């Protein structure tokens, strides 16, 4: 009986403390009142955004940042509906989304917060070290079916891709297979293996000398071979790295965005400025993305 009472008291105390904890600390911790930032969108960015929010909150205890994923489209839709302060997106906002936002009295402003290189990888046994974008396009569309056609061994090519719902898949389709041309209707060859995870691609490339795959640079382990890529025939072959992404010589890299309603002000401006600081950009590099500076 005694123990029960003790337990109940403790529980009540814990609930009480946790319920008024943030409010009281915000009143006493600093001169500015507690502030909230809602941050939502791309699943590619969500881990990065979480790491940033965690670091920023521990430096600024009076600011709360809530981060959720759900996909670039979800984030932008929330911005258009005015329910988030910052939308994360791994793609540019579309014109119809801008129109929709304008109709709701919202003015999306774009901020490039990091970059993401996509590395084309093969098994270390594969003698191929460099390819042109056109060759990669031909491999994935099924025009090239054997490694010997591009100077490799006599082996069939096994094409690995992410699932069609992945933003990376769509980016790869538009930038590599169709070489950035909107009229081009090239599709992935039907026998392309669509693997549900980055890990699946890496496991297959690691053990299969026939395979070719692609993945975010940060996901690629050191024991797999990254292909140097030339934008056009006769161009220089460039390996993916932080430097080659930032000087735009590496062909398959994309910007990652945050969108705000109008030019950011107050704490949102402070947060975005901090994101572009060297401290926050170091977190970008630590997570395998490419810093913008």
């Amino acid at each position, binding site marked *: 009986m005694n123990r029960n009472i003790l337990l109940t008291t403790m529980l009540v105390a814990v609930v009480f403390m946790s319920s008024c904890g943030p409010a009281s600390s915000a009143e006493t911790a600093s001169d500015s009142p507690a502030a909230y930032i809602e941050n939502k969108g791309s699943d590619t960015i969500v881990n990065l955004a979480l790491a940033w929010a965690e670091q920023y909150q521990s430096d600024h205890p009076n600011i709360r940042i809530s981060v959720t994923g759900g996909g670039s489209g979800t984030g932008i839709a929330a911005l258009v509906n005015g329910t988030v302060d910052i939308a994360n997106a791994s793609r540019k906002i579309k014109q119809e989304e801008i129109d929709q936002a304008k109709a709701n009295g919202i003015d999306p402003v774009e901020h490039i917060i990091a970059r993401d290189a996509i590395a084309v990888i093969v098994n270390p046994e594969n003698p191929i070290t460099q390819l042109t974008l056109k060759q990669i396009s031909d491999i994935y569309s099924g025009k090239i079916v054997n490694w010997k056609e591009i100077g490799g061994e006599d082996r069939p*090519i096994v094409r690995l891709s992410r*699932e069609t719902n992945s933003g990376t898949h769509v980016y790869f389709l538009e930038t590599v297979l169709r070489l950035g041309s909107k009229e081009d209707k090239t599709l992935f060859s039907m026998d392309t293996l669509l693997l*549900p995870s980055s890990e699946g691609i890496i*496991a297959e490339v690691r*053990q*299969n000398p026939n395979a070719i795959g692609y993945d975010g640079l940060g996901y690629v382990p050191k024991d797999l071979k990254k292909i140097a890529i030339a934008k056009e025939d006769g161009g220089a072959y460039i390996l993916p790295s932080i430097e080659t992404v930032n000087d735009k010589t590496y062909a398959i890299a994309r910007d990652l965005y945050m969108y705000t309603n109008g030019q950011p002000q107050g704490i949102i401006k402070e947060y975005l400025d901090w994101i572009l600081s060297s401290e926050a950009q170091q977190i970008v590099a630590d997570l395998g993305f490419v810093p913008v500076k």
Partner: protein
Amino acid sequence: MEKSLNWREFIITRLIKASGYSAILFVALIFFFLVREGVPAFAEVELKSLFNIRWYPIEEYFGILPLITGSLIVTIGATFIAVPFGIGTAVYISEIAPRWMREILKPLVELLGGLPSVVLGFLGILVLSPFIRVFLDLPTGLTALTGSILLGGIAVPTVVSVAEDALDAVPRAYREGAWALGATRWQTIWRVTLPAAKSGVLTGVMLGIGRAIGETMTVMMVTGNAPVLALKLASIISPVRTMTATIAAEMGEVANGSTHYHVLFFIGIVLFLISLGVNIAASSVVFRAKKRAERILS
């Protein structure tokens, strides 16, 4: 006193009856929901393109034939593995194995049945698929065959436990009768025990096949998910994409109410109808067997 007992009796029987009927209700509700979400696919996609050979939903190619053939070939492969192994194991456990062996084997088989399929899929990626690629000299080890082998492993425990129960239920007098006529052990198993337990064994096989059709996680991890039409015998050693893996992989990202969403539900209907077909086939076989047994006995 008498009255309250009656009351309790009344409530308990109704409750039991209701939970029995609830199964019908649940299946009907699930089917109703599938139809409601899946049938709009017919309005949005032409029938001709729905039964086409190209599946690439982000460019509006909604041909589900590769997915159906993919599911079928993986399931047939799994059946060929699970049936002989499953029945063989059941016969060994119930007829041949000494008592101590039985005590070890039964819980082991049940443990196998309880393995999470994602674990098997992981083993499939890391161990089985590289082995199959090297052993059969294929371009890749992520094939229908890899899926079939793992699915066979998943279906075996189901087949074994149901079939073993059925074999166990065959009266001892049947076997003794056979032995008394001078039949060998094998003749007794093949001509007496197995036929006597036929309906139970068949139920086990059908449940195992049902398990194989519906399995998702392992298949998604090891079959390569390439939506290629699988019509030839050689398709067993090439990558395929099954209906379940397609639903699982794409459900998360489709916009609610879009064409893609409706087509995924339509695939759900097809899957539902296939498992219904398997079940009907199973019960009609069992039913016929019962009828014949009654005729012989009367």
